[in-house]
């Protein structure tokens, strides 16, 4: 024997979070819905709230989110997840409630519901997937589709003269008094994914602390409907989406600051 030798042991440093069921998803290759799911699940695990969480799935590609999260869950009508979540949370304030919604769901048909849930300061959390397109129905223009972007319902590129400019929901919601925490993050690379997770954690903590409505908008890839490979899609988020949809915290209400500093 010579110098002291460290005995090494193999340990799992990354595995599927308990809040995510061990089933394959129906998402397309490279679709970052999967990343968003995982981040939410990790946060539920870390906050130890899986067993008192109720998730509300949208109508959109994430329609089966309830099958993937290892929590109680239900399926809202298109755009109405915030209303459904309101109903749940009002009768079960002890539960943790979240909606998971796409941009057609939240920013088009469900505009009224999300705005009024935020205005009332409903104590649930919304994970908002902005992929600049209607994924599930096959790639039509969303309210978030970028100017000039080709989609199956803007075949000549989004014409801002007739279809208007894309809407920045995080900023709109941040302007409402009932919103306590509103952030935008992106899922296009590992660094941003980690930041996104932190924001999601903050959002759930805001709910747990009863501070008000919380929402994290996540820029997300839809390689299929963007007709891109997954790596191209990630680059497009970075180069085309982020400039229009700046990342950051748009509302940090009183009391949230302290949560942001934790960990």
């Amino acid at each position: 024997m010579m110098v002291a030798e460290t005995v090494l042991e193999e340990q799992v440093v990354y595995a599927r979070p308990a809040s995510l069921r061990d089933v394959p998803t129906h998402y397309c290759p490279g679709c970052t819905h999967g990343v968003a799911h995982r981040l939410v699940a990790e946060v539920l695990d870390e906050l130890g709230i899986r067993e008192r969480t109720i998730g509300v799935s949208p109508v959109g590609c994430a329609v089966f989110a309830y099958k993937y999260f290892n929590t109680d869950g239900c399926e809202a009508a298109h755009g109405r997840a915030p209303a459904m979540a309101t109903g749940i949370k009002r009768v079960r304030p002890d539960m943790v409630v979240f909606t998971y919604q796409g941009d057609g769901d939240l920013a088009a048909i469900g505009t009224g519901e999300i705005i009024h849930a935020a205005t009332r300061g409903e104590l649930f959390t919304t994970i908002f997937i902005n992929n600049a397109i209607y994924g599930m129905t096959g790639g039509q223009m969303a309210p978030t589709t970028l100017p000039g972007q080709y989609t199956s319902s803007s075949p000549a590129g989004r014409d801002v003269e007739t279809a208007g400019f894309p809407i920045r929901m995080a900023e709109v919601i941040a302007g409402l008094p009932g919103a306590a925490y509103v952030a935008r993050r992106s899922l296009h690379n590992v660094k941003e994914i980690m930041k996104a997770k932190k924001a999601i954690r903050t959002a759930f903590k805001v709910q747990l602390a009863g501070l008000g409505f919380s929402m994290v908008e996540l820029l997300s890839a839809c390689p299929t409907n963007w007709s891109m490979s997954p790596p191209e899609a990630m680059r497009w988020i970075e180069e085309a989406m982020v400039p229009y949809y700046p990342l950051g915290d748009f509302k940090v209400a009183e009391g949230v600051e302290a949560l942001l500093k934790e960990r």
Partner: protein
Amino acid sequence: MHEEIIFAGFGGQGVLFAGQLLAYTALEEGRHVTWIPSYGPEMRGGTANCTVVVSDEPIGSPVCLHPSIAVVFNNPSLEKYEPLVKPGGLLIVNQSLMVAAPQRADLEIVLVPATEIATEIGQVRATNMILFGALLARRPLVRVETVRAVLQDKLGARKAHLHEINMAALERGLAIGRPVFSE
């Protein structure tokens, strides 16, 4: 003549196009025809299939439980459709992606190493044409000459360069499909 043909495989294998090509060609030859895809929210990475009915009579149902012909592009489709084909019907199988050989004795079965041949001729996307060729070899639903003309038309000027390789693939399929070789 009245045939109900199912084309089935993964999304991206040209399954729907093969069916459409048959439909367009049959129409060109004055037949009654319907083409209908299975449609679902999972259009990518999922399964894709379509049913074509070609008939001398006006077509009632464009769907059927028991097709007279199935052209299966991959193993899951083989597993799904082998049991459904009508007794005495025809089953064309992409042998390249087959896991276990089909078992039914009451069917006419053609195994075509389509993906391999397509890779070999340098156009993996022409798998569908090879299988289509094998189908035509066994059931001359339409004439090859009409297929050639329709294909030219559908490809248009922008994709004209693909015409020959596709027709070559079709010929390979025809060759393999010819009873003398495979039975």
